[in-house]
């Protein structure tokens, strides 16, 4: 019984995600490829993903919530600095951010 309900919940979550993709393909088949509306869609996607990133950072759930806010924001700022000042290399940004995170955690333990 518990098993069945777990699967119903799971499959509903699967459908609740796929329905967006499905609807989008259906709509896209009815619009011309170079229609300006596609630029609007991309803007929407950027806005949503940005909100997601900011939410994960500022109002996190789970493990990240264990860290104080400045503990998340400073490493993020470091990642951006490393990325944009040193030739826009992704791994440089990531190394900067993660190093900042680890350094702050170590510092916190010492103090």
């Amino acid at each position, binding site marked *: 019984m518990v098993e069945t309900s*777990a*699967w119903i*919940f*799971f499959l*509903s*979550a*699967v*459908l*609740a*995600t*796929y*329905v*967006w*993709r*499905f*609807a*989008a*393909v259906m709509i*896209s*088949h009815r619009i011309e*490829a*170079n229609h300006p509306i596609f*630029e*609007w*869609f*991309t*803007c*929407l*996607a*950027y*806005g*949503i*993903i*940005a*909100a*997601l*990133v*900011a*939410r994960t950072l*500022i*109002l996190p759930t*789970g*493990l*990240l919530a*264990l*860290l104080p806010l400045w503990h*998340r924001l400073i490493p*993020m700022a470091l*990642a*951006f600095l490393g*990325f944009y000042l040193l030739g*826009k290399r*992704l*791994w440089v*940004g*990531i190394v900067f951010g*993660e190093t900042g*995170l*680890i350094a702050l*955690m170590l510092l916190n333990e010492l103090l």
Partner: protein
Amino acid sequence: MKELKTNPRAVLAGIRNALGVPALLLFAAMTGFGSFAQEQGLSLYMSMLSTILIWGLPGQVVHVELYGMGAPLIAVVLGVAGANARFMPMTLSMMPVFDDSPHNRRWNYFLAHLISINTWSEMLKTGPEIRADRRMAYFLGFSFTCMTAGIIGVLQGYILFESMPQTVSLCFVFLVPVYFGLIMSNTVHPPFLLAFVLGCVLGPPMHLLTAEWGLVLTGLITGTLAYLLRHKLQVLLNKKEDNG
């Protein structure tokens, strides 16, 4: 990008480009998800299927979270739908990449399932540099590599949850906002950048206002604003260039 003469070569190019930061990201993010699912009592089997069948981390997390809390089915459906609604505009904006490809249009329903922030931004960036008839093969190679890395991540996160030091888990979890923050802000198109910046500012307060639809509302407001201002932005930028 090199001329990709055959489909197998395009698949290989996709795999090669995914192996590296994109696969690492999926591995790290899904490790976090695996640990979380284990903690909340989801079975290992379902946790791995979740990555394959939902393929959208925020929705996966909401599903596990609400299910673990014993929330009603309708809350799970709306919560997941809200968290993963970005796939609608993302899929819509990516479909033109495949327009000149010779494949049967029905395949698009499958290709759409493979879209994630990772694969989407890769195709928007690299897609136009690839011959139109090789894009689908490239996308499949790239996406399946990312998905495989994600499944391995879930497995190891689920199994190693208790023995993994918290510092390591935190590094994995923190990688996600860093990676997406960097790749999304790194766009040369002014309206996209504006949508991104406004989304970062408006996202958290909107989440406090409505946890389920905060993301969607933020996207609608900031994306539409950026889209409406796109000509003004262009004029502004041109002026700057004239002055400088």
